[in-house]
Structure formats: structure tokens, C-alpha cells
């Protein structure tokens, strides 16, 4: 469904990704893990078109994404829940969801989509007239995910959805990722929380200093000695 072939990217003359190749099949949930500064967010930005790649090929459902601007990539069916949520804090919850449904086809289905998102997050229904900036961290993450789902994407990119949340809420976020999978979305998720993310994904890639060091099924990675030592403190 999504494929990256030796993609390199960075900021100005600085390179943050080197020859990254990656495949995601329809219906899969894939994790991207790695230390701070590894280039995980950069990878997500390149896929969603927030950042242009230096070289390499990106394709989604057989169609090249390489030269598309971000707003065309959403149209193609990839929604990105960015790092730090990036909500419109001075707009209400409902207005944030409206913006998520900006695309013409999403606008037409706004009523049905928003009902679905509110059913997924009943909390947001209570808070829909509240300014997004005044919500708790967990609630804000719900808005960020809900906003991305409003465009009715086929694939969801999530960049550290559990960052900055209390352990109990982190648990809720991972349950949510499970539910989103069950709804049939393809998911690519970046996480620091290695132990927990390996419970919800099928496969994962380990990224270090801009390169893919390791990849495999969740079960394989869980028992990989190098991962256990460096990332799970076992």
C-alpha cells in the first residue's frame, strides 16, 4: 500500500534520513521505533508531504507521492497526526474537527464522520464547544486523532501519540490504536514506548541515526537480544 524506496531527506544541508526503504501492506499496523533524534518524525513528515525528500521514491497504492504537496497527499488517503498534536488551540474542539474535514468529499460526509468520531471519543462530544487549548493532554490527543480521522483516510500516521501522557492514559491510547486497526485502517505509528507498541503492531522498524537498523515482526523484535538490551533495559 505504502512503499518507500531509498528515501533520503533532511533540513537544508543537514541529512536526517539515509536511504530508508519501507513497505506497508493494506490493513497492517507498523511501528517505527528508535532513540531521540533518530529521524522518526522526519520520516513521517516526508510521507505526508510536510517535508520534501532529497531523493528516493515514495508511492501510495501504486501512485507516486514524491512530488505531491501535503494537501494532495491527504486527498490520496494518508492522514498524519503530527508530533506534539499541533491542534488549533484557539478554535473549539468542533472547529478542529471541521478543519479536519476540509476536503470536499469529507465535507459532504461531515455529519456522519463527526458522529463516528464522537462515538469513538464520547469525551469530545461533551467538550465540543470548548477551546482545544484548554483540554487535558489526553483529550487533546483524542482531538488530534479525531481531526485526522475526519478526512476518512485509508492510512493513519501517528507520531508519538502517547508522549507526555500519564501511564493510565497511555494505556487508553494504545487501546485506541487497537480499535482504529479493527476499524480497518492501516496504521504507521512512531513510539518511544517500545514494549507497549510491540503489543499493538504487526511489524516494526528500528531507526537509528537516520538509517533502518533492524526490522521484523513484533514477536521477533521482542525477543531480539540487541533490542532487549538497548531499549527494554532487560
Amino acid at each position, binding site marked *: 500500500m505504502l512503499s518507500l524506496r531509498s528515501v533520503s531527506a533532511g533540513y537544508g544541508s543537514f541529512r536526517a534520513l539515509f536511504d530508508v526503504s519501507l513497505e506497508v501492506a493494506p490493513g497492517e499496523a507498523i511501528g517505527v521505533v528508535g532513540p531521540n533524534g533518530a529521524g522518526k518524525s522526519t520520516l513521517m513528515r516526508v510521507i*505526508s*508531504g*510536510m517535508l520534501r525528500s532529497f531523493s528516493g521514491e515514495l508511492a501510495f497504492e501504486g501512485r507516486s507521492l514524491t512530488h505531491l*504537496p*501535503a*494537501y494532495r497527499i*491527504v*486527498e490520496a488517503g494518508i*492522514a*498524519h497526526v*503530527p508530533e506534539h498534536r*499541533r491542534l*488549533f*488551540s*484557539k*478554535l473549539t474542539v468542533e*472547529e478542529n474537527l*471541521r*478543519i*479536519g*474535514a*476540509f*476536503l470536499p468529499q*469529507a*465535507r459532504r460526509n461531515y455529519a456522519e464522520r463527526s458522529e463516528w468520531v464522537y462515538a469513538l471519543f464520547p469525551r469530545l462530544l461533551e467538550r465540543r464547544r470548548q477551546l482545544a487549548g484548554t483540554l487535558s493532554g489526553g483529550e487533546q490527543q483524542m482531538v488530534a486523532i479525531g*481531526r*485526522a480521522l475526519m*478526512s476518512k483516510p485509508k492510512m493513519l500516521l501517528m507520531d508519538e501519540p502517547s508522549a507526555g501522557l500519564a501511564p493510565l492514559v497511555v494505556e487508553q491510547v494504545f487501546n485506541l490504536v487497537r480499535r482504529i486497526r479493527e476499524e480497518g485502517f492501516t496504521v504507521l505509528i512512531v513510539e518511544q514506548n517500545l514494549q507497549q507498541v510491540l503489543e499493538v503492531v504487526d511489524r516494526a522498524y528500528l531507526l537509528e541515526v537516520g538509517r533502518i537498523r533492524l526490522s521484523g515482526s513484533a514477536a521477533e523484535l521482542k525477543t531480539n537480544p540487541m533490542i532487549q538490551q538497548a531499549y527494554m533495559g532487560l
Partner: protein
Amino acid sequence: MDIFLLEAIINGILLGGVLALLALGLNLIFGVIDVVWICYAELVMCGMYMIFWLHGFFGWPILIASFAAILGVAGLGVLLHLLVISPILGSAPINQLLATGGMLFFLQSLATLLFGTDFRNIGLRLPIIEFGDIFISYSRLLAFGAALIGAVALYLFLSRTYLGIAMRAIAQDREVMGLMGVDQRRIYLITSAVGGALAGLAACLLVLQYDVHPFIGLSFGPITFMICVLGGLGNMIGGFVAAFVMSQIIAIGGYYFSIEISYVLAFVFFIVLMFIRPQGLLAR
């Protein structure tokens, strides 16, 4: 209360409506695109000339001429964005100020070249209304009413429509807008058209009260900028309130002293307030 003071206050409120409209337009442009159209009042001047020629010279009915002018100035706004603003969007604010400031002189000179420095009047005489002993000009009342309707329409647009919400969102996070499927360039063009249309509406209302000449923009431009800064640049509600504050200072000052002194008072008030509340009147 002194009947003439009351009349001055009412006239102040009526003037405030048109100034508020200009402040809304300028704030909208600044809030969404992050540039200041220094030549905003000159767009109003262009609109006034359009009505003068269409109605006064070609004899179009005033309503149709006004409508054409609103569309015409909206078109000028789009042109201004495409030709001047869009190529320098990423450059330093001072360059943007110089570019739109240059447009001010360009438009003034162009008008002088084309139409000379004559004062032109559309020759429409609207009646004066009498309430008890108070006299109010119908054209001012009309201008106030239309300005309020324009402001309400803008409010509804910004709060109810997808485009309006996107315009409010874009100032908060430009980068993330792309992820929402929003093409920034399109939003900028639409904003420029709406900003231009507001200047066009103001032109329709001002042409009923004032003669047109190439430098008429100087009568509204500086006061509009003061109002926007006073209300907090980009703050729509602040600008709206500040417009009525400033127009009252001018009206009441004009009653007690003279109209020239009242403008001096308005400037002094502005400068003093900038020392006390540099973030603007309504900033928290």
C-alpha cells in the same frame, strides 16, 4: 444634555461603523496572510473612482455601480496579492512594508495621472433626517447600517463556513494546514478577495459623503492603521471596538474644539495608549 453634543456623539457612532469595516478588512489580511496592506485606503480610493465613473459618468444605477465596485476592488485585492505580496511572502517584514507602501504611491500617482487632482462628486443628494432637534444625514445612517451588515456577514463567514474556520486556523499553525488538505495559496487568494471586497464596500459608503480625489486615502488610511494597532493587530474584535473609541474622540473633540484638533487628540490618545498598553486595547 446638550443637543449638539448628542448629535456629535451619534455622528461619531455612524463614522465608527465605516472605520470598523476598514479595520476588519485590514485585520483579516494581517491575521491570515501576515502582511500589512499599507495601501489599503488607496484601494478604497480606487473603488470610489469606480463608482464615480460607472454611476456619475456612465449613468449606471447606483446599486449596480456599487456592486460592480465591490467586485472590482475584490479583484484588485487578488491582483495585489498575486503581483506584489505572493513573490515576497517569505521575505523580511520591512520589505513587505516597503512593497505595499510603494503601491500606495503608485496608486495615488496613477489616479493623478488618469483623473487629475480634481475633487469629484457623484452628485447624489440624500436627504437629512430630523429626530426632534437632531439632524442626521441619511447617507451616514446608510453607511453605518451597511457597515454593520458587512461586519455581521464577515463574522458569520468566519465562524460558520469551512473557509472561514480555515482562515482563523491558518494564523495559528501554517505548516499543519497542509495536513488538513488545505492549499494555503488558495486561502490567501480568497482572503485577499474578501479584504478587497470590504474595501470596496467602504468605498460605496464613503463616496456618498466625500468627494473623490487621488489623495482621499490619506483621510482614512492613517486612522485605520491606528485603530488596528490600538485594537491589537490581527484582533478583529479589538479593531471593531477601537474603531468606535477613535470615532468618538474625533466626534466629541470636534464638538468642543475643531475637527483638526480632534484628529490631534486622537493621535495623542493613540500614542499615550501605546505606552500604557502596547499589546492593544483588548489584549489580555
